[in-house]
């Protein structure tokens, strides 16, 4: 993968304390985001994707979590080596994050303009007046109508979609190199979701800001991202270019997720789903963590041997033992109109 990635996560382990001791919720996260690129981090609830994203920001609860091993490098610098005080100037300027819940992510006691302007003041030392002007400017950039007037209003006067726009404005106010978007559209109406994604995509293209999109919705991924990392039970199980992933998944879990997309349903047939749930961190099955739910699991192999994430051809990697052995060629695949559109768009951009 060239050029040098902006964000590089290697062998990241994250543990949370509970009554029985430390539970490893992320076990060997592995991820690259290219400068200006868009990477999706996909998985079900409990797969460790949000925790990984919070770890990049240094936002894990300090008293109840720890990172025993791993590296999170931003432009070559290991963020895990930094103290809270050293991390602070990086947050907001190089790294920014928006969250799943726009309704509760803004402080109800301050105007939205002030919440953006204070970020600008803290990081650039701008005067109140200049910072306010910048706040109005970014509110306009994210599509808030009458930004100058709305900046002086409080969050409760904004709808969910508008609040997420405000969050995005706040995040981009100091022109970060990487925006982490944790399920940014999950809490929003479907019509608003598309608009927010279009906005993120537009900002990514015009400002050459890289985006790490954390989501459980592969439909969103097809719309937006160049590369995908699929996580399961705290581990990455597949890495691929978006179009390739949709065209031919190289892990049964990815294939299951694709088939579970509403877009891939056939009229009159039930929606497909993956049986079972993600195992708890303290009850990980032996062998491949996905094998109890996998229709391709082979007795004597998948329930014994612990697989690694290994590179396949070129840019792809998979954690599936049977894929690695070349035993599974054709996993069910999806080619819906979104993928076709994404592929066309990718071609247009690269040409």
């Amino acid at each position, binding site marked *: 993968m060239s050029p040098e990635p902006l964000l590089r996560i290697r062998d990241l382990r994250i543990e949370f304390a509970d009554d029985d001791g430390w539970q490893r919720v992320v076990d060997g996260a592995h991820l690259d985001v290219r400068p200006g690129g868009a990477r999706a981090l996909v998985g079900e609830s409990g797969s460790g994707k949000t925790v990984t994203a919070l770890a990049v*920001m240094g*936002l894990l609860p300090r*008293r109840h979590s720890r990172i025993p091993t791993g590296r999170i490098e931003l432009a070559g610098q290991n963020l895990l080596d930094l103290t*809270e005080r050293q991390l*602070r*100037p*990086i*947050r*907001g*300027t190089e790294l*920014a*994050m928006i*969250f799943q*819940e726009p309704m*509760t*992510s*803004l*402080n*109800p*006691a*301050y105007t939205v303009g002030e919440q953006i302007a*204070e*970020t600008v003041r*803290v*990081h650039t030392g701008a005067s109140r007046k200049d910072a306010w002007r910048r706040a109005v400017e970014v509110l306009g950039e994210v599509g808030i109508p009458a930004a100058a007037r709305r900046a002086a209003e*409080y969050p*409760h006067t904004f709808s969910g979609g508008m609040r997420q726009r405000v*969050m995005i404005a*706040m*995040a981009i106010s100091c022109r970060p190199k990487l925006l982490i978007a944790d399920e940014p559209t999950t809490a929003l109406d479907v019509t608003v979701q598309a608009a927010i994604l279009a906005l993120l995509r537009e900002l990514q293209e015009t400002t050459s800001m890289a985006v790490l999109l954390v989501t459980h919705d592969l439909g969103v991924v097809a719309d937006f991202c160049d590369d995908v990392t699929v996580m399961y039970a705290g581990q990455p199980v597949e890495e691929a270019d978006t179009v390739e992933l949709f065209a031919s998944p190289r892990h049964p879990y990815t294939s299951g997720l694709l088939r579970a997309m509403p877009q891939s349903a056939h009229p009159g047939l039930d929606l497909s789903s993956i049986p079972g749930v993600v195992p708890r961190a303290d009850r990980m099955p032996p062998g491949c963590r996905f094998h109890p739910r996998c229709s391709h699991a082979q007795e004597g192999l998948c329930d014994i041997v612990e697989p690694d994430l290994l590179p396949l051809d070129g840019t792809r990697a998979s954690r599936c033992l049977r894929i690695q052995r070349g035993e599974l060629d054709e996993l069910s695949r999806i080619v819906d109109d979104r993928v076709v559109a994404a592929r066309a768009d990718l071609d247009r951009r690269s040409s």
Partner: protein
Amino acid sequence: MVTIVGRRIVAIVPVLLIVSFLTFSLTYLVPGDAASIAAGDNASAEQIELVRRQLGLDRPFLAQYASWLWHVVQGGLGTSLLSSRSVLTSLTEALPVTLSLTLLAMLFAIAAGLLLGIVAGLRPGSALDRIATTVASLGISMPSFWLALILVNVVALQLGLAPVAGYTSIAEGGLTGWFQHLLLPAVALGTITAAELTRQTRAGVVDVSEQDYIRTAVAKGLPTRLVVVKHTLKNAAIPVVTVLGLQFGGLVGGAIVIERIFGLPGLGTLAIDSVLNQDFPVVQGLVLMITLFVLLVSLLVDTSYLYFNPKVRQS
């Protein structure tokens, strides 16, 4: 916003009316006869009757209340049955002492309560938190008169760091003298409020710290000081301010005991003297004045909600 405050001010009037009626009737329900008190110890039955007529105490109850209220509205609270001095004069003499005392007690409570509450709330479960919570529990369960006696004994008598009793106004003793005389009484009086504020502040800080918008504030790279003072405290403030307002009534009540112990010539001392001597006009004036102050403080608290919670401003 102006209409909200205006409506609150108008709402004070009926409360004052009810309180005035209750206090006025109360003096008639307690045993004792105002006329015989006013006439003195060795008065004959005729003399008492004469005084009764002079004071208008022979008229029907409601007529008496109406004329008393009429005087009150005009600013007259009558004269003391004992000293024949104007009640208003006695009150205005005593008021600065009690105001100084409660104000200092309040300041002490706010400073100590916020500090301990924030320190405890930012790291729940830590050693500092446990110390602060224990101190708060002690402060709430310690009677203020007992704490006052301990303070007098240790700080004033043994260490000699403060006067044992008495009051000096700023005009007489300057700011230092005034402060020295009020320090121990204010600490004794304010400790319960400080403890209550510690608990409220801690609970508020713990609760607000877990909110998503605090994570947002950290995520955008704000220094801890800003996250705590600006983003956490303003949202944690409403219950704290509410408790502070409620505690004000308690402080005035506590001041009666504390003033007695430290020999401060404030409203509390006046209250005890007038109650023991059944000096009804003074008691009535006192109750009215204290009610007015408590209502004003709660008006202030309600107004502060407008600042702390923007949603209130629009409704």
